[in-house]
């Protein structure tokens, strides 16, 4: 048996995992907070993406919007991560073989690499295009990838529960 599967099955038997599963309220309550956390993360990221595409807040410098949004994106991310982890702990055994869950994890990895590349490349010269209505092609490409990836993450996240049943 693969090590990862072994770990998932062990987590499934822990006290935390069984107690979330056994309570009729825990799972849906955590799930709702997870969804609202996603709204905070994706909503704030989408606002920056839409600015990069020149669709909103055109008069505001990109870097200023990014700085103002970031704390709330991270706050939402913390909520999303902790609740997501709890949901996974409760369902680790079934998640392991769930293709929607696997796809979501790959997409999460990609959506993490995207801003990394963005910040290490085109965003370094943000002072040269901070006020531009239409930002450089690579910045717009990062914005579109971010929007598409996050949308897919939401879709696959919802699919996890449909695939499970």
């Amino acid at each position, binding site marked *: 048996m693969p090590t990862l599967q072994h770990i998932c099955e062990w987590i499934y038997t822990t006290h935390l995992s069984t107690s979330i599963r056994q309570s009729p309220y825990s799972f*849906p309550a955590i*799930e*709702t907070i997870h*969804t*609202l956390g*996603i*709204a*905070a*993360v*994706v*909503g*704030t*990221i*989408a*606002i920056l993406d*839409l600015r990069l595409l020149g669709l*909103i*807040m055109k008069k*505001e410098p990109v870097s*200023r919007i990014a*700085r*103002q*949004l970031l*704390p*709330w994106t991270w706050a*939402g991310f913390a909520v999303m991560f902790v609740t997501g982890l709890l949901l996974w702990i409760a369902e680790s055994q079934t998640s392991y073989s769930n293709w929607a869950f696997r796809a979501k994890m790959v997409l999460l990895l990609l959506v993490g690499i995207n801003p990394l590349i963005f910040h290490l490349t085109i965003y370094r010269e943000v002072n040269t295009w901070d006020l531009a209505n239409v930002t450089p092609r690579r910045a717009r490409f990062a914005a579109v990838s971010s929007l598409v990836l*996050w*949308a897919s993450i*939401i*879709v696959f996240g*919802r*699919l996890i529960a*449909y695939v499970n049943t």
Partner: protein
Amino acid sequence: MRFLVALSHWLGQTHLGVFIRDSSYAFAAIEMLHLLALAIFGGSIILVDLRFLNLGFKTQTAPAVARELLPLTIGGVIAMAISGVLMYAGGPMRYFNNPAFQLKMVLFVIALAIHFPLQMIAARSLEVAPGRQRLFQAAAVASLLLWFAIGFSGRVIGYL
């Protein structure tokens, strides 16, 4: 009430309602659209309210944030309402008597009546008058609590 029952019955019997009820994928697809709209809508609502509370986006004035994000909050709420009506059309009577659904609709009407006049009044002004700041902050807190409660009651619908 009788009007709402009649309207719901009619909605469920339209071609669209029957299609959504009979299709194996329609409901799931519409629900995903509802969630995608929630991401945009929720994020922009939070930011507008946080700006009123002086907790975020402070480089721009509250009216500027309210104005710039108005297309997202209004577009978001329209997308959520349309996808919501479609989910409802797939089985109106299942939801009509669902207490969580009833609560969600009542809270939704209250939230609409509090949040959107607030954001639209702010969007039209140049700055929030000092005497009105308290009012805007109270409304922003009410708006945040209401939208969160709507999210929760929405999830509960599926469990009742």
